[in-house]
């Protein structure tokens, strides 16, 4: 087999796995948009906040330590204990649920019935507020994240492909773990929305707010639920991305990778987020592989948007989005 073809196969496989990482971020957007029509600009910052909180709890850091020390002249930074990863994850989930409650109670409850652009603006404000709170709470330094996820080349794939093709493929164990976790996450979300009372309430609200209200479903409760789920998805995304780079501010920028995925897959479809992520992942990887070197490289960021735009021209609602038909 020609070398270039073998290399392209490796690029495609890695692109698919990168796409899963994008999908993890896009999922959080879809959950909230589907249930409330809100495009949550703060999703990326939520991933940062969740990951920072997880590491902070794990390491036994005192939240708002800098602030406390500045006000009271103390010098406290750590509680003096460390929390196991699983317990820290559970505590972080609780904090994300509390965050969802606060967001709903103090922001969106007061904005029910407002124009989508107003809600979008509110999420921009929320993003910057959360960024500041995250800084104040845990500081801006890079935090090392270790929740026991495997990382590094998968030897089995390397050896197997080498024996078969004469070239060992590089697949990162972390990407494989991310794909498995994403699959479990998506199946859990689908099962939750199909087979539980709360899930059915979420779907009812997503289909028609007014009708859901008329049968006694609490909009407030469902929105808290949806923001909580988005918070948990943000935690998963933050952990996966943070495992490579450490937890730091740039995690909040991963939201930018979710936008072309959403444009392509549709804002209201969980399968769309997955398929969109895979297409973007493979598309940008192949473009960088084939065309990148000719035009100076670093094409991933902008090419993802070009790809999404092309899809938009032919299918404005995205691959799996609901077609909007308005009769005049």
């Amino acid at each position, binding site marked *: 087999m020609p070398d270039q073809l073998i*290399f392209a196969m*490796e*690029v495609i496989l*890695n692109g698919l796995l*990168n796409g899963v990482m994008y999908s993890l971020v896009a999922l959080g957007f879809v959950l909230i948009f589907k249930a409330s029509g809100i495009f949550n600009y703060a999703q990326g910052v939520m991933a940062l906040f969740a990951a920072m909180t997880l590491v902070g709890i794990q390491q036994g850091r005192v939240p708002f330590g*800098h602030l406390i*020390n500045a006000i009271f*002249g103390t010098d406290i*930074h750590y509680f003096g204990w460390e929390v196991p990863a699983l317990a820290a994850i559970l505590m972080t989930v609780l904090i994300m649920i509390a965050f969802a409650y606060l967001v709903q109670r103090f922001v969106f409850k007061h904005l029910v019935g407002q124009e989508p652009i107003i809600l979008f603006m509110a999420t921009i404000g929320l993003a910057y507020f959360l*960024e500041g709170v995250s*800084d104040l709470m845990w500081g*801006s*330094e*890079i935090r*090392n*994240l270790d929740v026991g996820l495997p*990382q*590094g*080349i998968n030897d089995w794939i390397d050896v197997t492909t080498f024996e078969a093709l004469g070239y060992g493929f*590089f697949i*990162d164990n*972390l990407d494989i773990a991310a794909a498995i976790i994403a699959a479990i996450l998506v199946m859990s979300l689908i099962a939750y929305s199909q087979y539980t009372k709360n899930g059915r309430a979420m779907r009812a609200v997503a289909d028609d707010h007014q009708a859901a209200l008329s049968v006694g479903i609490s909009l407030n409760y469902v929105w808290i639920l949806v923001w909580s789920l988005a918070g948990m998805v943000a935690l998963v995304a933050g952990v996966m*991305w943070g495992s*490579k*780079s*450490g937890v*730091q*501010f*740039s*995690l909040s*920028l*991963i939201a930018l*990778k979710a936008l072309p995925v959403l444009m392509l897959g549709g804002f209201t479809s969980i399968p769309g987020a997955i398929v969109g992520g895979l297409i973007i992942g493979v598309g*940008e*990887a192949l473009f*960088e*592989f084939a065309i*990148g*070197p000719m035009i*100076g*490289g*670093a094409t*991933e*960021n902008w090419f993802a948007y070009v790809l999404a735009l092309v899809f938009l021209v032919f299918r404005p609602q995205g691959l799996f989005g609901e077609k909007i038909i308005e009769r005049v």
Partner: protein
Amino acid sequence: MKKLTILALTSAMVAGTPAMADLVFPSLSYRTGPYAAGGIPFADGYADYMTLLNQRDGGIGGVETRVVECETAYNTERGVECYESTRGEGALVYQPLSTGITYQLIPRTTVDGIPLHTMGYGRTSAANGNIFSHTFNYPANYWDAASVIINQLLEENDGSLEGQTIALLYHNSAYGREPIRTLQTLAEQEGFTLTEIAVDHPGQEQGNQWLQIRRERPDYVVMWGWGVMNQVAVQEAINTRYPMENFIGNWWSGSDHDVEQAGADAAGYRSLNMNRLGDMPVFAEIQEHVIDAGLAAGDGSNLGNVLYTRGMYAAFLAAEAAALAQEMSGESEITPAHMRDAMEALVIDAETMEAAGMPGIGPEFAVSCEDHGGTGMAIMQQWDGEQWVTLTDFIAPDDSVTQPLVLEDSAQYAEENGIEPQCAES
């Protein structure tokens, strides 16, 4: 109405009060944003050294220093806004810690007569003081860094890189693109093949770039990274099992936080450093007079790490120039013009560094009207899995390669901007 009049008069009186007698050193820092992890220790080191001078010596020449910090978030527009909002405070010298901001400030500071010190970053050809009258980039610049790395590799390869391949993994920005020209010249001269691999801001994703490196297996990978790009690159190098000792970063890719996440797996990774590592007497003084006194800019945890030390070194160079300016002008309250003249006459020798409690922190150098760039020397350091250790003494760049490039680029700048050489008569 009467109250308003009194208020207006009071405001006018306050506004009209002469600035307090202090030496103002603006710090265009970034404690937030994607590059905060690098910006924080540098800003802490800079501020803490100035505080030390105030606490221990009563300032410089009896005049207290004042660091005016302004948050840029490593954003060029915000950096320019910071400059505009702080220059009226009597700023003596600017250190923006950003190549993008530096490019914007070079013409502005020249017009305003305020010196700009871009230590190891910014516009490389500003080393030509004949053209860039108010910009200084001593003790070293990017082209020096590229040359030092190649000189070290030549040393390790018996003086020849013929037939070898070197990949430059660079941040796709003005900063990251700076060394390309030098490395291309050196590739032609030394007979190695240069592959340029760009990584987009912020650098969180490098999967495709490292697949390329894994396919092509260059003999060395040289990195021009900053922020998250460094941590991800180190991790990707480990993941793809690239030999870490053949992976070399510049001095902005060799901080503690760049390798701590990877820990022992990153052992062998090398980088340049423009300042020496290790314990120095000045750290104990900062601990005593600044951190223990509760006056530190941060929580004190960065004391002695790579970027903290560099920030402290930058402050030391600024303080030495200020002291020289006082001496040259005979005035304790100096102006930016005095500061510029002193920076151009600055001599840093072993005794000066020893006296400041930081023996051998940098190379000895002397600035002149023509040469604003210093010697360009740098050390090579290596991560041993737990800490950075010094591998070499200060290595000199190849001036015969860098100097013509500096002259060519600065001549082009002078032509484009109608600048007359300032040292023509010297």
